[in-house]
């Protein structure tokens, strides 16, 4: 009797049989984005119908003409239809029926079409994430432009107050929700297997699912506009969330889906790094970017479930009328604040740590020096991720916290600056007496260090209870977190794109346009957000569309700078299209002369990444070290490889 299940093969992620029959069907019959859209539409209609049926006799629905249950069911069924249309459930059903899986079709699809499918190739998933994240970022950026347009005048309004808060909510949520995966999604999925010497990720289906949930979350979030948006901003605080119109449902479902996406992506990343490192890739040789992915994934796996819980509880309050956040019925709005910020503060580091990883990976390459204090950098990242679970109460300094608990959380918040300081120490040590090459990735890396320093120092200032009480809810706080997230993460993301795009596409972005983009982005970023500290200190509150006349000059300055900052992003888009679509000048394999394992193979990498399992011989940062051995033997002799594999720890039963 033969076994039907095929062994897991490295070349074909997910254990798909490469020699199995390739079922060729007409393109429109294959699961792809068009079938997903069809599934979503059908699912939405089914969900609405069910919702309308089960609530037909509910007086609240009849009186308010708002049927939250029907809308939420519509969104959930639309998501299921979207995933079903992509073929996500096909293999699961086949397995339950005892049939062999048939992922071959999606994997083997050549050309551009594979980017619109549920694919198991980590490199394709990485590119899908990259393009999608840029699209989400630009959409959220357009909302930011709309906000600054409104704030050009304190009295003449472009939008009404309701529309303004809708725009603020969409901008904030889109940025904070979707940008959690802006590095782990594209660079983590694409590069981590290459950096650790693997041909695959551990769970490619989870990885693909994590990506395909993001467009669903994006569209659902955007659809909130159809239902008058949500008035809570990105934090979704109760009791406003319970009182809001149906746009709130869109926010809750979208954020919940994104939470699930984060958990799946985090699990896949953690297991890949722990289990799929090539022989010789010990923890002390792990690239620092991979360390940052490890710390980020750890936060995602443990913090995002609490977010999902918080979103779910709010949904039950709004739909089946539980009373979690209704004080008269035994609930408490502070419960939501606790649940949200237990996720929300680690999320700040979900956003920051990948940026640290990128810049720490890049600077040794362009300093041509070993990374100073490698272990310190890794320890800093782990320290930040651990401490981030113990600071969430500082978001409640001005609301529900026991005053006696404030000093403790002030202390933990200030403590977190210590491991963050490690990252700066490592950078300073690496820069020391180095002959720095000011390439575009390096410029963005330096820009990130500069910006995050301002964000970090203002963060330490805000962690002080007295200072926080004064600045709470003002533009000062807004400036602080934009310095850490946009000034930190997005600058690092840009550094990553310029640095790794030659690896991903085999094409280098135009250096001159890149430098123009960096300088315009750096100057106008600071020109936008630095005055906001002053605006906040002078008392302008966040999320309010009117302000004191005396602040108009500063606000106009900020708005014009913001438009120019938006223009710098446009330069990037032009550069990207110009270099990758119009010119398409092929780049040499390793344009930066990097020692990173990912650069030791051709660019773009071959389908299988490595011809054989590489044997890692040394750490990746031995720049300028005399007699440094190669990073890896990419074609080790069979007996050496067999010995190396056999000497690795055996799996636990």
């Amino acid at each position: 009797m033969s076994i039907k299940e095929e062994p897991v093969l490295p070349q074909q992620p997910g254990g798909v049989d490469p020699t199995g029959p390739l079922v060729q069907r007409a393109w429109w019959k294959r699961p792809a984005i068009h079938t997903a859209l069809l599934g979503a539409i059908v699912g939405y209609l089914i969900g609405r119908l069910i919702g309308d049926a089960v609530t037909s006799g509910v007086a609240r629905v009849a009186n308010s003409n708002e049927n939250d249950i029907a809308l939420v069911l519509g969104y959930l069924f639309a998501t299921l239809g979207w995933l079903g249309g992509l073929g996500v459930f096909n293999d699961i059903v086949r397995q339950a029926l005892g049939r062999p899986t048939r992922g071959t079709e999606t994997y083997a699809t050549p050309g551009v079409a594979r980017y619109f499918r549920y694919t198991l190739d980590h490199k394709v998933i990485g590119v899908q994430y990259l393009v999608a994240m840029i699209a989400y970022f630009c959409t959220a950026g357009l909302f930011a432009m709309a906000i600054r347009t409104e704030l050009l005048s304190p009295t003449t309004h472009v939008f009404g107050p309701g529309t303004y808060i809708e725009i603020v909510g969409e901008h904030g949520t889109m940025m904070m929700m979707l940008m959690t995966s802006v590095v782990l999604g594209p660079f983590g999925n694409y590069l981590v297997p290459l950096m650790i010497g693997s041909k695959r990720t551990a769970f490619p289906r989870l990885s693909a699912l994590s990506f395909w949930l993001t467009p669903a979350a994006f569209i659902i979030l955007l659809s909130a506009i159809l239902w008058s948006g949500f008035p809570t901003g990105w934090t979704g605080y109760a009791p406003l969330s319970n009182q809001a119109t149906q746009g709130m449902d869109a926010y809750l479902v979208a954020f919940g889906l994104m939470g699930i996406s984060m958990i799946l992506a985090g699990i896949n990343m953690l297991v890949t790094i722990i289990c799929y490192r090539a022989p010789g890739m010990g923890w002390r040789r792990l690239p620092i970017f991979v360390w940052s992915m490890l710390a980020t994934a750890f936060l995602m796996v443990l913090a995002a479930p609490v977010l999902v819980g918080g979103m779910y509880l709010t949904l039950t309050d709004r739909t089946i009328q539980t009373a979690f956040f209704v004080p008269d019925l035994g609930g408490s709005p502070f419960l939501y604040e606790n649940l949200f910020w237990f996720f929300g503060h680690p999320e700040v580091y979900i956003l920051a740590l990948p940026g640290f990883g990128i810049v720490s990976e890049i600077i040794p390459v362009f300093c041509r020096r070993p990374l100073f204090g490698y272990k310190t950098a890794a320890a800093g990242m782990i320290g930040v991720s651990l401490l981030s679970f113990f600071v969430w109460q500082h978001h409640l300094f001005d609301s529900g916290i026991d005053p006696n608990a404030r000093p403790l959380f002030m202390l933990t918040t200030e403590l977190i600056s210590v491991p963050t300081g490690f990252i700066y120490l490592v950078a300073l040590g690496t820069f020391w007496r180095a002959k720095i090459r000011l390439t575009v990735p390096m410029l963005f890396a330096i820009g990130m260090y500069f910006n995050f320093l301002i964000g970090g120092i203002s963060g330490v200032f805000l962690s002080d209870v007295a200072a926080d009480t004064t600045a709470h809810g003002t533009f000062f706080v807004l400036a602080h977190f934009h310095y850490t997230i946009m000034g930190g993460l997005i600058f690092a993301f840009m550094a990553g794109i310029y640095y790794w795009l030659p690896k991903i596409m085999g094409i280098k972005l135009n250096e001159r346009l890149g430098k123009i983009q960096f300088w315009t982005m750096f100057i106008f970023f600071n020109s936008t957000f630095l005055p906001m500290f002053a605006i906040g200190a002078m008392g302008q509150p966040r999320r309010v569309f009117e302000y004191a006349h005396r602040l108009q000059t500063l606000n106009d300055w900020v708005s014009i700078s913001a438009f120019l900052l938006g223009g710098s992003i446009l330069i990037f888009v032009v550069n990207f299209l110009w270099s990758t679509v119009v010119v398409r000048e092929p780049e040499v394999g390793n344009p930066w002369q990097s020692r990173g394992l990912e650069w030791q193979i051709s660019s773009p990498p071959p389908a299988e990444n490595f011809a054989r399992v590489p044997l890692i011989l040394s750490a990746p940062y031995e720049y300028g070290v005399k007699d440094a051995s190669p990073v890896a033997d990419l074609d080790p002799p069979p007996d050496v490889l067999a010995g190396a594999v056999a000497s690795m720890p055996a799996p636990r039963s």
Partner: protein
Amino acid sequence: MSATNSGQSTFGDRQGQALSASDEAGIGIHPAEALFYHEAGLKATWAVARMAVGALSFLFGAFLFSYFYLRSINSHGMWHPRGAVLPQAWAGTLVMALVVISAVTQTAALARIKAGHKVTWQAGARVALTLGLIAVGLMVYQLAALPFPAGASGFDSVYTAFTPIYLIIAFATMFWLRILLVRAAAIPAEYLTEQPPSYAETFTVQHFQARLSAFTLLWNYLAVVAILFWVLFYLL
């Protein structure tokens, strides 16, 4: 080397396995590479079960926190007002008992399949599956026949919100058990006691066993969660 004890294998065994695997597996890759990815897959299965437990702990932790937070503040005396109706205790106790018995049965059955008795495991797993599905059905009944409005009090809110989440996770876990049962049907019983004829088949058996261990860990964990929340809802 026995297919059932990969965890206790010696390096020599594994090197020999690696050097023989390629041709016998007929999968056209280097033998050491075949072993590397095979063992990485086994380690990944072990690791992902622990991570799932970690993630679920934080999810259930949100409910646990809500329970104690609302109970401790007892806003307007509405945590659980005197005279308030309780959820059906018999059904709740039965759900918890069914899940625990199901988990114990599966754990005992796992010990049998490790000893090479596939048929005994299959019988045990079918019992565990049936008990688990009955528990899921009972939870659906509890929600359908809820004796209080969902938001009548803080307690009622936590109870009403927790039950569907646990129900969905338990159902998904039972679906996983169903897949394992289907897979087991395709593995000859003798492969669990003797060396299968090829390394490809050895790999398949070891993957199955790793997944079964991972499933058992998760189901046992959910049984512990069931006991914990039963204590919260019905005893405290």
